[in-house]
């Protein structure tokens, strides 16, 4: 559990990760298909431009063919071929989008509420609710102006006091809202973000395949501490989750069955 999470962002990272849910894999696949098609078209365009620049220079004697000014067949060709490429992208994108909206038959519903500047989580029907705030060590560093040290603070701005604990292999429905301004709940490893809008309840779902710790951030500008209200999800086995939930229901305040990465000692009394 303490090992580096494959879903964590990496230094010099170039590409999106696959994530750990059906929907995150959908997002990744849609992204890669679009990317490869764009690379192919881009190569064609850049190579054509490069050939033109080399082959038709006045300095090497090229004379302009001033009659070559229109060609209807070409116009049709380079209209129709892109349309075909768009259809190839749109068909899988549509089925993936429909899947993202299908929140039926979930086993657990979690209500997420965005506040300035923290998240509230409630396990609907379970009588468990708590606030999740950025950890105090991160807050201390950012207030001081010092540079965070990756060795001692690898999860700077990505750790909270009370993570969201969820079971793996379970379809979890999220209902998302806010109390003040618009926020957005985003964990890249889960594959989506949804805006948290005051007065509206948005829905999303996730089924996490792999136990682990998944981190995200608020993704809609919400005021001065928009960068300082992260999200941490601890995905555990069904048994661990049931035990933890029962224990919380009876009043125990254990934040998670997993160790927090930046265990913050209780503040001194007084």
């Amino acid at each position, binding site marked *: 559990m303490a090992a580096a999470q494959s879903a964590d962002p990496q230094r010099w990272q170039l590409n*999106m990760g696959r994530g750990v849910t059906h929907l995150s894999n959908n997002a990744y696949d849609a992204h890669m298909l679009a990317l490869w098609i764009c690379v192919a078209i881009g190569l064609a365009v850049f190579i054509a431009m490069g050939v033109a620049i080399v082959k*038709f220079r006045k300095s090497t004697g*090229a004379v302009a063919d001033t009659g*070559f*000014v229109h060609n209807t067949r070409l116009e049709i060709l380079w209209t129709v071929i892109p349309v075909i490429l768009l259809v190839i992208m749109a068909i899988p994108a549509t089925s993936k*989008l429909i899947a993202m909206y299908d929140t039926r038959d979930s086993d657990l519903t979690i209500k997420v509420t965005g506040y300035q500047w923290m998240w509230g989580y409630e396990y609907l029907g379970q009588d468990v609710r708590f606030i999740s705030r950025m950890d105090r060590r991160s807050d201390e560093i950012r207030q001081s102006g010092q540079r965070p040290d990756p060795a001692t603070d*690898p999860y700077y701005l990505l750790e909270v006091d009370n993570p969201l604990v969820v079971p793996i292999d379970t379809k979890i429905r999220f209902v998302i809202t806010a109390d003040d301004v618009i926020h957005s709940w985003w964990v890249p490893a889960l594959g989506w973000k949804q805006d948290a*809008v005051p007065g509206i309840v948005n829905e999303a779902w996730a089924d996490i395949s792999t136990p682990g710790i998944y981190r995200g951030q608020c993704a809609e500008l919400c005021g*001065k501490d928009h*960068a300082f209200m992260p999200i941490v999800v601890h995905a555990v086995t069904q048994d661990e989750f049931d035990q933890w939930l029962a224990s919380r229901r009876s009043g125990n305040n254990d934040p998670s069955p997993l160790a927090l990465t930046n265990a913050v000692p209780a503040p001194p009394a007084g």
Partner: protein
Amino acid sequence: MAATTPVADHHDAHGHKQGFIERWFFSTNHKDIGTLYLGFAFLMAIVGAAFSVVIRAELAVPGLQAVSPHFFNQMTAMHALVMIFGAIMPAFVGLANWMIPLQIGAPDMALPRMNNWSFWILPFAFAMLLMTLFLPGGAPAAGWTMYPPLSLQGGANVAFSIFAIHMMGISSIMGAINVIATVLNMRAPGMDLLKMPIFAWTWLITAFLLIAVMPVLAGAVTMLLTDKFFATSFFNAAGGGDPVMYQHIFWFFGHPEVYIMILPAFGIVSEIIPTFSRKPLFGYQAMVYATAAIAFLSFIVWAHHMFTAGMPLGGEIYFMYATMLISIPTGVKIFNWITTMWRGSLTFETPMLWAIAFVLLFTIGGFSGLMLAIVPADFQYHDTYFVVAHFHYVLVTGALFAIIGAIYYWWPKWTGRMYNDAWGKFHFWWTIVFVNLLFFPQHFLGLAGMPRRIPDYNVVFADWNLVSSIGAFGMFITPFLMAFILLRSKKTGAVAPARAWEGARGLEWTVPSPAPHHTFTTPPVIRDSDLAHGDVSH
């Protein structure tokens, strides 16, 4: 022969020499007003760039060293407002003012006094906007998009920034009316619409977009104003309103707005590339129709800025398809520009370099735009640095490069002097290096999970952020470099002929360089061979 008054200063019909105040504050001359707009845009670009230097200075290393988070939010909002409304849009209006009458054989714009007022509103509007930095609570800090409820948490800046936006909108609407009236009524005999230069066409279409959507922005921000000060609840759910409705109204303006900022750029590139290819624009009519198609489509795609706001599935699917469709006419334009160069006789003076870079780098921005249209992927890209990379590629290496190219292209016509082309090329290559260092890594940051509008980030994002900040610092010297190159030419540059570029075609190249203060006071006799598109068999 195009009839022009040979006098290069400004006695002419006035019967007396114009004083400084009369010439610059009470101008009714499209060339002087064009110069005012371009000078203003240049100053605002430096102000906007300074804000972005503050942003990139804070983001250069992790930790919060330079500014407070609230001030950082003011910088991001003001950077965008100043660049969009103070730099890019006025620059395009300046180019329209200078070049449309010259290109269509008209003596001036249709409504010269309104033209003057359109410009002079802007310094007042921006004084009002910029002074909010000094108010208690500071400048607007909810992004240039000003989403409620957050924007309503602002202090005194809410009223002043909204008032400033109203003034800018009025300026744009009046300018657009002027462009339409001029193009539709004042073309010289023989200048049929489908023989008109493409720059005039793209501005004609842009002007319709402006008139259609600037009032919508005015409506949106007025509703913000009444929600804040007059107890309405347009965007307050507790009062029966809807915060997401603001987003719909704003983006109904906002999406056509970004096409307002790119269509004149398309026109400029369509002027420059044929000149330096010594060959007419390939597919002139296709280019006109593609521009019109893009303008029409721009009205029906707005909600692609809102894919994560919680729209119903049907809405998401529709907007995904409509947004993907815009890539078709845009692609047509890219292919036509390259085919213009194909079998041409190319030279690579400074304006051509900017135009070629536009084609290549705007295409990259177009690709990230197409990727953003795919909703399942957008659920990961939205509100991350991937979006920031996308719009800076289309706005900086797109719109701004076209503006810079246009200035280098038409400078000899405006001033009668040729700048040092080697220096121009140095400016170009310096920019290419630093603009790509600045924006390309932002694609990676977004894909890796870095959100937008944050002053600080986890250490794993540090490497690409440092590269990006180095790009920003290198870019900041470029406006000064450009000013040096151009202003120096006025003293030491070679004298430019009327047809400053061998391959240039169009009425503007039939008048002397520098263009006299009043041109085409009697309509020119148009010979199709003078025009870039005189041959309508294609």
